[in-house]
């Protein structure tokens, strides 16, 4: 899919970078060493259109959660732009920023930590409705019921506390809270990875259904390749803060072009007996984001690595007209 054929982008990110400076130790101060910097997200660009799901996959430390938090401005990026409906979202302040947040919501990973344990479910939903005056005060109760219906929770859930629910039910509550303010984009950061397999499927289906009904744009962040294949139209694979490959999900899965994507796809245990092998998909450990290797970040683990990979960072660009890959040899 080239840019010309795409519908109008709802959320557009250009060159986004986020770094975290680590606290200097006493030794560092004495020796006048600079604070060490984690380059969590490096020059990430992506787009999401209305009704579309972008899957972002990667392993721990690849920056996918930091990216999610930058998109909703829980973190302020160090460089780059985030445009929402063409408007520079990073420059918004005060009411305009609140209005932006109303449209771009987030669903969190931990269904236990993301709900205030002292608020009844109904109170938590009503609070979101009231703060943004989504409905007149008199209609709040009816809207809370409607939200619970939307995520398939019983209406009497409104009177109960989060600890009375299972993990999957809590995640439904988190989704209802995000939907309360009528967003057009939802950033879901590992929304099902804390749940059991059979419950994961329930939540994934809920996302698919809600997207269909409400026309939401969804950024679905996960480490689980099997899942991302099920939910996303397009896919972005991250490694050490950078996107290394991005394209239409099915086609990327069918013929991954970056050696890391290939390794990732091969490493996922298939629910398919009779494919037992002793050969690991990829060697080596994930490098520390504190000291990323020079050149291509994947070169120490890459079977194709040459001198150029150790020296030059490959740009993320379309090679031979398919989809963008950041590899000298793709």
């Amino acid at each position, binding site marked *: 899919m080239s840019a010309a054929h795409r519908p109008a982008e709802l959320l557009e990110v250009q060159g986004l970078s986020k770094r975290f400076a680590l606290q200097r130790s006493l030794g560092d101060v004495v020796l006048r060493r600079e604070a060490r910097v984690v380059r969590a997200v490096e020059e990430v660009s992506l787009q999401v259109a209305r009704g579309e799901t972008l899957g972002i996959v990667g392993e721990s430390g690849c920056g996918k959660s930091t990216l999610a*938090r930058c998109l*909703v401005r*829980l973190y302020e990026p160090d460089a780059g732009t985030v445009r929402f409906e063409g408007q520079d979202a990073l420059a918004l302040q005060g009411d305009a*920023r*609140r*209005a932006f*947040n*109303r449209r771009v*919501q*987030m669903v*969190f*990973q*931990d269904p*236990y*930590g*993301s*709900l*205030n*344990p*002292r*608020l009844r479910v109904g109170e938590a939903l009503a*609070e*979101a409705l009231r*703060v*943004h005056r989504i409905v007149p005060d008199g209609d709040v109760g009816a809207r809370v019921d409607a939200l619970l219906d939307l995520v398939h929770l*019983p209406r*009497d859930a409104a*009177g*109960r*506390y989060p*600890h*009375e*629910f299972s993990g999957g039910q809590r995640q439904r509550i*988190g989704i209802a*809270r995000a939907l309360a*303010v009528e967003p057009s984009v939802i950033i879901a950061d590992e929304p099902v990875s804390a749940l059991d397999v059979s419950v994961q499927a329930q939540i994934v289906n809920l996302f698919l259904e809600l997207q269909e009904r409400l026309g939401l744009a969804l950024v679905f962040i996960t480490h689980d390749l099997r899942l991302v294949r099920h939910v996303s139209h397009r896919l972005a694979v991250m490694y050490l803060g950078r996107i290394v490959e991005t394209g239409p999900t099915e086609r990327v899965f069918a013929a991954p072009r970056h050696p890391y994507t290939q390794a990732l796809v091969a490493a996922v245990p298939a629910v398919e007996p009779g494919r037992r092998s002793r050969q690991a998909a990829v060697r080596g450990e994930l490098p520390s984001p504190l000291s990323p290797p020079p050149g291509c970040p994947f070169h120490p683990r890459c079977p194709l690595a040459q001198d150029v990979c150790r020296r030059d960072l490959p740009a993320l660009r379309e090679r031979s007209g398919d989809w963008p890959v950041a590899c000298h040899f793709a």
Partner: protein
Amino acid sequence: MTARMPRLRLPGSLVAGGAILALMLVCALAPGLVAPYDPIAFDYTALLQPPSGAHPFGTDQFGRDILSRTIAAATIDIQIAVFATVGPLVVGTVIGLLVGYYGGIADMVFGRLVDLVVTFPFLVLVIAIVAVLGPGLVNMYIAVGVVGWVFYARLMRGEVLVLRNHDYVSAGKVLGYGEARILFRHILPNAARPILVYWMTDMALAILLGSSLGYLGLGAQPPAAEWGVLIADGKNFFSQAWWITVFPGIAIILAGIGFSLAGDGVADLLDVKR
């Protein structure tokens, strides 16, 4: 899941502690109703009487009834427990909430202040301030307040540092909630438990402190009855009349037990099953 859990089952420790404190409170608010004698009336016909039917706790060198004096002293001691701690509780909680949430320079300044305060023994610091201001209850409250809020603030700050990273706080920010709402509706209620428990202990400690200062002549002034003052009164007669010091001492211990039981109970009551 569908049946609502019975929400208020009071923990046993809260019931026991509450009962003790309620008894103290009755003594404190209406000593006249409970005390058999006038606590400051001299009775030269009954000097230094050991405990008996007429005087269950005995009498002192002026023939004053120790039971009545112990009861009357509750007024001042409970007052100390409350007045010496409420100011630090409120001020410390708010400051701890703010420095914990916002961090930055205020937090660094606060950190140094904590270092400064904890290096001095609390009692010595309070005595020094009272010595400057002059003895008396009000000056004691001021002295305790000037130092005491730091402990609440330190506790609160620690709680907030943990809670501010919880995703429900992040969710509040993403939902565009104002900072006051996040601080007071989402963080404060979840941080309240250790603060309230500490408050209970602190009230017991305040009574001990008030008694210590009373004993030293820096707190409540005679002839007002205060447990520390009563103990000080009896110290010269301890070998002949142990009851003058022992019964107010027991009252202090009982108050301490009451507060700490109530503290445990509050902790249980506010425990959210996660």
